[in-house]
């Protein structure tokens, strides 16, 4: 039931908005097409503007993974996180989630396949991936587009939010799924 509703919502939301906004505007006697073009013209400018910060962040994170620094960090914190209730197979999710959305889904898919969707590790990676975002990517895109290079408290706040999401995931999965 929930699943059918969810699927309907995700299938309908975008088409309804894409049709509904211009239709409503037309009824309000807005010159729809010129307005659309005026707004859309910004798209390319923004896309080009975020290239430099994204290159900077992607290269740094690419190096971090290719050098083995990520694995070294994982080996370093594994004893601690295991005691806190994060199995070794789920630890890569914690480390990779703020860095790369694609890699995080890769980790989730791997754990779900090898340990099963209804295992504790399976629930844990799912809830972790679903309750956090790719912090470094979001900051690079948003601040990059605005031309801001000093992020001030945004980075520590974003990473603290990720930590809170992970900690809450461990607690909630234990409470809900044992």
């Amino acid at each position, binding site marked *: 039931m929930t*699943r059918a509703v969810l699927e309907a919502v995700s299938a309908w*939301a*975008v088409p309804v*908005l894409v049709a509904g*906004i211009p239709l*409503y*505007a037309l009824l309000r006697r807005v*010159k729809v097409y010129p307005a659309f*073009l*005026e*707004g*859309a013209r*910004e798209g*390319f400018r*923004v*896309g080009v503007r975020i290239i430099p910060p*994204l*290159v900077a962040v992607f*290269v*740094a*994170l*690419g*190096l*971090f993974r*290719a*050098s*083995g*620094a990520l694995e070294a960090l994982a080996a370093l914190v594994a004893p601690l996180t295991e005691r806190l209730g994060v199995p070794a197979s789920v630890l890569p999710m914690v480390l990779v989630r703020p860095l790369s959305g694609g890699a995080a*889904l890769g980790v*989730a898919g791997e754990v*779900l396949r090898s340990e*099963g969707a209804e295992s504790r590790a*399976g*629930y844990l990676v*799912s*809830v*972790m991936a*679903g*309750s*956090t975002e790719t912090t470094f990517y*979001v900051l690079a895109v*948003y601040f990059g587009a*605005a031309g*801001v*290079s*000093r*992020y*001030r*408290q*945004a*980075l*520590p*706040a*974003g990473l603290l*939010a990720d930590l809170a*999401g992970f900690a*809450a*995931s461990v607690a*909630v999965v234990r409470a*809900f799924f044992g």
Partner: protein
Amino acid sequence: MGFVWVLLIASSVAVAAARGRMGFLSGAIADSAGRAVTLSIGLVGMLSLWLGLMKVAERAGLVEALARLARPLLCRLFPEVRADSPAMGAMVMNLSANLLGLGNAATPFGVKAMEELEKENPNPGTATDAQALFCAMNTASLQLVPASVIALRAAAGARQPADILGATLIASACAVAVAILSAKLLGRLYRAAGPAAPGGGG
């Protein structure tokens, strides 16, 4: 960001040297730089579409109406942003798109909001408290339904792939609460330390 960036790169190169993985680095550098460009250009289509639709919605008074609905909440979160600022409208669109899980639409609206906030920034190039808070909220997952994870669970043969919904909502709420609290509290710290302080602004 400057400090974190240099630290990430320098420590990675040092670790690679110690583990004899130097040979992998040049390839990773070229690969990452290329992917950053592919991704940015790939975003242009969705950026154009949603920024165009947003302009249409603006002219029709839809953004204004939505902003008025969310005003009590947003004015409390962002007291330094004027209620009738164009940034408010864009932020509301971004947060609503996030809640609905329309990631493709949330990014263009968020980018627009950041640009509008930057126009009101007395210190261009350095994040304002409003920009930092807005970004921190976006780095926490606001979406009500994590569609990609549910799809992954379905593919892995889960009998009820959406059974994580309740748990995810609670964990997301914790993450968002911490994002807001820490952005507000750390903002005070950074302000006390002066505009150009800790690590070039993190």
